[in-house]
């Protein structure tokens, strides 16, 4: 028996020794970034990817011709050449008529022909060099009319429009195009469809989707038309020719749909009416007609564009790449009813990396492992010193948030997005990061006396909302920190409508909020009080407002003993809406303590799925309004606060109220609508092409300040997602920077290598609550 025990002990020792001597080598520091996703990507083919999950692998394994990187000060970004050998050169002055004709080059004499030298050190992960042929082949595949890749329109539908790219992609097909698109109608007819996804509905829904979702209660005309089948069906979403017989009926359908949004969106009619165009097929590099991407040297490409583009936007568009490895792309091709498709980028063996990392392991729905790509030029070119410290990236698939959170707390994964229910526990964590979104949520007030008075009953007052001091008091009574911590998943208290994501100058990435003008708005109204909460000030304002209203002689004014009852309109009955209303109710009741309105003021929740329409038409006292998007254009957002068809603030007469702004030492007075026109319309006196940036910023900040001081809304928070990062890792910056976030994997550093981290975990319990 003793012999057996000894043998067993010996075996164990040998096994331990073997296990201990793994292939990683002793004494070599290895840094692994462990993260997770909820599912595997469906494809990471750069021509087909669809979702953020699909883009995860590409983000590590590919590199654009140019890349946005955190600048030295870590408050903005630099744009550096990566797969390109230098800056793009605008050689539009060399354009010949023959080139213009062949490549479909647009009108103008600048920004239409660009030459880009390629990085000659760039290689595929298998060591093969990448040259101009790879770029041309990959673009030909991306735009192939036989493949119809999902991402093809990246090169003709946005700001970068390669000459003839769209026409080549549609080659040999008849295609319905929007009326304003370039292209000759082949039959001179106009068509209508209720099945096309619409840009202003974020391309996710069509009119038919709304009919299915909301039914005849909301769209009696549209739903009847939809159900008649006369305008196509879900299974056969055909185009309907607009004729003399049906045009009146179609206009009724469209008008009804527009009324949901309370406006005729500028692009709306263009999105639902079409023309039929035919595109003759032509080769990607045809002699008569060709796509505007040409190999002009072994390591040089030239782009011919259908519309001019600035250097910044060219580099912005080229910060993602379209390269695919020809041998694997071709090997993966198969035919589906005449359509060619490839399985490129769906498994370990049918994809080739060319960025800092390469795929080393891929188990569907389980694990993705990436390791350093030794053939990436950046590890030896001397330009990336101190970057890409991470050796291994492990992405574990963990569908359940609760499971992932436990794994984070045990040190198995290095970062995790938080949900609202997690915030209470981690709100004080030093490892909390906030990733802002462009949207700012505000409580918007109706300031129209008549509509408010019309909803009053005996002893109930609402017209006090028209008093600017009352609205200001309301704003100062809101503890935004408390609101965001208790009712959002990491959003940030915010007191002004344009948040930090808006970039004043795309070339440098400087946020509007960080400019002198942007900062002055906050300083002037709120000073250091970024929470915008000051109950003493609020009460003083409330008393003043009360006295003014009591002294008013207008019909329906507040009289002593009246109760102020305000309704807060929300989308549904969900608990979160009740909580919002309850927060405002509590805040107002606290505000009124010690004032004549103590115990006589309340906020009540009211539900209407169409509450924006109600608010815009004066049927509501208050509601939430949220605007965001187009972060590269902070000036453009003024449209939603000034356009009578878009703004929520009923009673704020932007067409007639005038605003005086000192522009370059001269006072200029315009209506709010006109100020928006002057700033944002191409013909406006202060548009981007006519005024310098400083002047435009002066105007924007003056408009924003005046808006805030009108108190027709009170900004409450800027949307933001909270996440935690582990003690193991460190981001390039903990302050979010537009376009580069926290610096990404490029600037990620480690406080512990893998062995040290394992050791730390053995001897310590992680606590992320402090």
């Amino acid at each position, binding site marked *: 028996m003793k012999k057996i025990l000894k043998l067993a002990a010996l075996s164990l020792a040998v096994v331990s020794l073997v296990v201990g001597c793994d292939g990683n080598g002793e004494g070599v520091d290895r840094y692994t970034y462990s993260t997770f996703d909820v*599912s*595997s990507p*469906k*494809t990471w*083919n750069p021509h*087909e990817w*669809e979702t953020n999950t699909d883009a995860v692998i590409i983000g590590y394994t590919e590199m654009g011709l140019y890349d946005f990187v955190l600048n030295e000060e870590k408050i903005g970004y630099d744009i550096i050449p990566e797969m390109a050998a230098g800056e793009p050169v605008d050689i539009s002055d060399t354009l010949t008529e023959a080139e213009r004709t062949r490549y479909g080059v647009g009108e103008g004499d600048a920004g239409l022909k660009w030459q880009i030298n390629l990085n000659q050190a760039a290689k595929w992960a298998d060591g093969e060099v990448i040259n101009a042929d790879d770029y041309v082949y990959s673009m030909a595949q991306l735009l192939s009319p036989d493949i*119809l*890749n*999902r*991402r*093809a*329109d*990246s090169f003709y*539908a*946005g700001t970068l429009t390669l000459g003839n790219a769209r026409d080549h992609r549609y080659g040999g097909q008849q*295609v319905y195009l929007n009326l304003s698109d370039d292209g000759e109608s082949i039959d001179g007819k106009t068509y209508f469809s209720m099945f*096309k*996804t619409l*840009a202003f509905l*974020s*391309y*996710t829904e069509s009119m038919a*989707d709304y009919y*299915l979702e909301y039914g005849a209660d909301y769209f009696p005309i549209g739903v009847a038309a939809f159900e008649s089948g006369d305008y196509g069906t*879900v*299974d*056969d*979403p055909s185009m309907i020719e607009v004729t003399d017989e049906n045009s009146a009926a179609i206009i009724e359908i469209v008008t009804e749909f527009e009324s949901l949004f309370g406006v005729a969106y500028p692009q709306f009619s263009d999105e639902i009416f079409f023309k039929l165009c035919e595109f003759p097929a032509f080769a990607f590099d045809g002699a008569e007609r060709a796509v505007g991407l040409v190999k002009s040297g072994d390591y040089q490409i030239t782009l011919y564009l259908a519309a001019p583009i600035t250097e910044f936007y060219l580099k912005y568009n080229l910060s993602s790449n379209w390269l695919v490895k020809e041998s694997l792309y071709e090997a993966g091709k*198969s035919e*589906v*009813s*005449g*359509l060619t*498709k490839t*399985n490129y*980028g*769906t498994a370990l063996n049918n994809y080739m990396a060319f960025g800092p990392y390469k795929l080393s*392991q*891929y*188990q*569907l*729905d*389980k*694990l993705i*492992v990436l390791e350093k790509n030794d053939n990436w030029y950046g590890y030896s070119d001397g330009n990336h010193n101190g970057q890409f410290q991470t050796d291994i990236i492990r992405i*574990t*698939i*963990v*569908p*359940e948030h*609760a*499971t992932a959170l*436990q*794994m984070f*707390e*045990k040190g*198995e994964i290095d970062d995790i997005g938080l949900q609202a229910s997690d915030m209470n526990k981690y709100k004080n964590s030093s490892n909390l990061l906030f990733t802002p979104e462009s949207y700012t949520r505000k409580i918007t007030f109706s300031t129209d006396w008549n509509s408010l008075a019309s909803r009053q009953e005996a002893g109930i007052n609402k017209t006090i909302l028209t008093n600017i001091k009352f609205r200001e008091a309301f704003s100062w009574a809101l503890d935004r920190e408390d609101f965001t911590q208790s009712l959002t998943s990491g959003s940030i208290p915010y007191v002004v409508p344009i948040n930090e994501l808006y970039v004043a100058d795309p070339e440098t990435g400087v946020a509007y909020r960080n400019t002198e003008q942007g900062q002055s708005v906050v300083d002037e109204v709120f000073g250091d009080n970024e929470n915008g909460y000051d109950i003493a000030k609020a009460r003083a304002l409330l008393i003043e407002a009360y006295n003014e209203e009591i002294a008013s002689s207008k019909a329906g004014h507040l009289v002593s003993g009246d109760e102020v009852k305000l309704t807060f309109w929300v989308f549904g009955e969900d608990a979160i809406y009740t909580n919002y209303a309850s927060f405002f109710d509590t805040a107002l009741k606290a505000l009124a303590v010690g004032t004549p309105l103590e115990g006589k003021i309340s906020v009540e929740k009211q539900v209407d799925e169409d509450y924006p329409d109600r608010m815009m038409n004066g049927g509501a006292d208050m509601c939430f309004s949220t605007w965001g998007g187009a972060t590269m254009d902070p000036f453009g957002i003024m449209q939603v606060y000034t356009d009578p068809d878009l703004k929520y603030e009923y009673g704020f007469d932007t067409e007639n109220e005038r605003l005086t702004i000192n522009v370059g030492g001269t006072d200029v007075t315009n209506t709010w609508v006109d100020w928006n026109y002057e700033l944002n319309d191409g013909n406006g006196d202060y548009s981007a092409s006519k005024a310098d940036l400083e002047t435009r910023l002066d105007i924007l900040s003056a408009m924003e300040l005046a808006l805030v001081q009108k108190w027709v809304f009170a900004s409450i928070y800027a949307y933001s997602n909270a996440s935690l990062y582990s003690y193991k890792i460190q981001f390039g910056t903990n302050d979010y920077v537009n376009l580069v976030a926290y610096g990404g994997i490029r600037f990620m550093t480690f406080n512990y290598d893998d062995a040290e981290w394992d050791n730390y975990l053995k001897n310590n319990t992680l606590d992320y609550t402090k």
Partner: protein
Amino acid sequence: MGKYIIKRLYLMVLSLFVIMTFLFILIRLLPFHVAGAPGADNDYALILREAYGYNEPILVQYGIFLWNIITKFDWGVSMQISWLTPVSKVLFDRLPSTMYVNLFAILISIPIGLGLGIFAALRKNKIEDQIISVGVMLAISVPSFVTAFLLQYIFYSKLGWLPAIMTATDESGWFSWDTIKSIILPVFSLAVGSIAGFTRYTRAELTEVLTSDFMLLARAKGLTRTQATINHALRNSMVPIFPMIVGEFISILGGSLIIENIFAVPGVGKLYLTSIQKLDYDVFMFVSMFYVVIGLVAALMVDLSYGIVDPRIRIGGGKAE
């Protein structure tokens, strides 16, 4: 018996066809997934829809669908989970993980369930029986996701004894200690319900058999209590339990939607859930049919197993003479 099996197989195929037809029609009536985003080409999805025959009349679509299955065993391709991968491959790739976890769950639940049931029956109305009965009631009434999260919280988060999720078998292999350790929690989460079921049935059946006249006779013949229980009572009580065991073994193929999600088991159950969430209709259709087949085969095997356990039960025979 042969005739009976043939008849059942015929009925099975018929049921399968009817269910498949209904499923196909219902799925094809759903709106096609035309996801889009700024910068993405939305026409592409509609063109693909046409290429895959979605614009044909529904009967024509069904004809194409059946023809592809019969001639090529082609059930379509995944459009949302694994781009253009045949759905059969999408499912069969995930089958091993499901079978692996379920097999362990059954191997644990049968002996434990039977053992506890026998013990409870033998100690009927004693404290041990009452404790077991309470445990069984708890195991049956507490939803599996609660049990799973509880086990995960205790054994992973608090005690740190076991991993939170199943490890990647591509990395550690199927039979390494790391992998086996990582499936203990999902296996037990799955087994809890089965153990409770086996325990309850075994206890009920055995309790009844133990009070039968033939047991009295067996004891009167001089058999010890153990001999009588094992040789006579247990065998007789197995008549309703054995088919349960057969059914459990067949269900090895079908994954648990909830448990696989919580423990990140890359199996069939998780795939089914994902196909619903991502509107991957062909995958949903194939996995649904896979579950239907499992259900029908399990029902057939259970019926047949009655005759094996108790030769007195004759299935499909004519009227007794």
